[in-house]
């Protein structure tokens, strides 16, 4: 089990929520004070450096035109960390390929980071979320198809070492591809791709890449991971090892329940501040017509749930919070239900959570939760865990049992 520490780099100093329609796409940047932004960037970089020192791996992502995430160019953040960290694996999850018109440029950026970091890059590719369409001015129609074609070009750029090659696909065209540098890791850096459904998991499994699910919770995790495992077995003739699957949740570990509740409530800013106008959630061609219709009706949310509360999100398996024992048990229960995974991605900072509190949780996780999760995966057999998961009855939410009866209210 590897654990990856992540923050979205939010800008939390927002005006009154009733004064704007959407935190994404259209919130005027007059509300962004560059001086405050600079302080925030440097704080977040320090937190990532702390994760490196503690023994956690590092994850970075990007979003555009939003106060929820001030990183519109993840390669820049990871480029800084490639130089400033010593040890951690550096995961970018990910490059929004359908919104990058030049896949070869992505291949170049990633190769550069891989070389600077001496082979520590883990390179994620994502289709990106609906809110990105307007910011990128890219129609999200056939985004998945474009993701995989861009991927093909990038992989070829990374692995071709005998001079320029030609690529003229359905979506991308590049006639003289010959990137410098080539990646440090051979034949190429590990690849991750996000999965939102059993169907999107299939090509990820077939490529033997790490499949990552974000905040899928109890309601969706099993179908996604099962889709991956079934496709993996069919393609490779053996069960998927744990290290092929990854899960992202919000996580806060406190010394006691009160501390944990306080920290977790700070993290909930990430979900609660995500006020997004409907038109940005539903750009043409992102969702299939039935899903788009459901979003229009307001009965489906394309990503983050509407009006999330901590207890509801903990029950769903989207937030793990408590004392070290409680967090371990929560993750273990979810891990067993999901059929097992080898990468725990932790959103460990959001909103106004102080650096001291973020660090405290990071340390408690590293010292007291992480070793037990490692042991859990080391002593378990992936096929058996998957088998046991298959036999479990469907669950929409966790039974939080005795954990924090006081806490979840």
């Amino acid at each position: 089990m590897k654990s990856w520490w992540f923050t979205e780099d939010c800008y939390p100093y927002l005006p009154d929520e009733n004064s704007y329609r959407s935190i994404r796409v259209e919130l005027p940047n007059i509300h962004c004070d560059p001086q405050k932004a600079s302080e925030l960037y440097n704080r977040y970089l320090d937190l990532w450096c702390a994760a490196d020192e503690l023994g956690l791996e590092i994850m970075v992502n990007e979003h555009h035109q939003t106060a929820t995430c001030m990183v519109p160019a993840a390669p820049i953040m990871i480029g800084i960390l490639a130089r400033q960290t010593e040890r951690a694996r550096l995961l970018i999850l990910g490059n929004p390929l359908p919104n990058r018109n030049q896949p070869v440029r992505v291949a170049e950026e990633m190769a550069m980071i891989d070389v600077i970091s001496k082979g520590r890059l883990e390179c994620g590719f994502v289709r990106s979320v609906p809110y990105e369409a307007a910011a990128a001015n890219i129609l999200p129609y056939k985004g998945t198809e474009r993701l995989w074609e861009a991927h093909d070009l990038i992989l070829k750029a990374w692995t071709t070492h005998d001079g320029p090659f030609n690529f003229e696909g359905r979506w991308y065209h590049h006639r003289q591809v010959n990137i410098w540098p080539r990646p440090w890791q051979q034949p190429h850096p590990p690849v991750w791709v996000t999965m939102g459904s059993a169907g999107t998991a299939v090509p990820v499994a077939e490529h033997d890449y790490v499949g990552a699910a974000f905040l899928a919770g109890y309601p969706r995790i099993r179908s996604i991971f099962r889709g991956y495992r079934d496709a993996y077995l069919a393609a490779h003739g053996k069960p998927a090892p744990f290290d092929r699957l990854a899960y992202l949740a919000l996580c806060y570990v406190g010394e006691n329940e009160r501390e944990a509740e306080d920290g977790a409530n700070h993290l909930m800013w990430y979900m609660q501040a995500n006020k997004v106008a409907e038109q940005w959630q539903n750009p043409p061609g992102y969702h299939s017509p039935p899903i788009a219709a459901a979003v229009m009706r307001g009965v489906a949310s394309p990503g983050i749930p509407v009006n999330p509360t901590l207890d509801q999100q903990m029950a769903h398996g989207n937030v793990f919070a408590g004392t070290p024992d409680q967090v371990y048990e929560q993750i273990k229960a979810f891990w067993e239900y999901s059929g097992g995974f080898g990468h725990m991605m932790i959103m460990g900072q959001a909103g106004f959570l102080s650096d001291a509190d973020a660090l405290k949780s990071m340390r408690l996780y590293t010292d007291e939760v992480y070793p037990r999760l490692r042991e859990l995966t080391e002593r378990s057999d992936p096929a058996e865990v998957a088998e046991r998961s298959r036999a479990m009855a469907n669950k929409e939410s966790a039974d939080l049992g005795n954990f924090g009866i006081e806490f979840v209210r």
Partner: protein
Amino acid sequence: MKLQGIDLDVARMGSGPPLLMLHGGDGPVAGMPFATRLAEKFEIIAPVHPGFARTRIPDHFDCINDLVYLYLDLLDKLDLRETLLVGFSMGGWVAAEMATMTTERLSRLALVNSVGVKVGGRDDRDIADVLAVPGERLAEIMFHDPSMMPDFADMSEEQLETVTANRMALGVYTWDPYMHNPKLPGRLHRVTIPVHFIWGASDGVVSVDYGRGFCAMIPGATMTVIEKAGHVPHMEQPDRFVEALLAFAN
């Protein structure tokens, strides 16, 4: 009808000289009262742009020219001659592009609140971003009388899915450059048949000034402005719309 290997839905009604009718981004209009009236004088041929009204978008389709060549083929396949070509909004864009290529099978061209060109500077939003406006604003920019706008809340699941599928198809054909072809103004001189613009005065998608600017790009083109109508004068003022079109056709 099979055309270019595509199953193309084509509504046909009425009799008389041929009228090829190209709908806008809100979907097929051949079932509307104004069309019934036109069918008394014309043989109406009204294809459904692939992707609209729950038809399939062919895998290789991704821009307006895909429709342009499709309908040039349709004119040939049906051997239409002396055709009155009428285009609404994005259908007007298709029609204008067709006419710059060849007017061999056309007699006249009518453009109704049509998009397709840029009339302002690069910082001017000539054409409202209908793919980005909030739902409640859409009624205001589309209609003179916003209460004409169908209420999504009253729609069946299937109807709403059709709305979202139409919106996806609209995006596929018009996303970038948005709703226009920068090259079109330089080609419009090739349109040598009579051209008439019909425009709803209260259009919030493309203003009357936009229509006048577009009209001025085609030598000899004329324009009728219909009061108390927005982007869809054929829906809001069907009688005056038909009157204007018939006056042009005769």
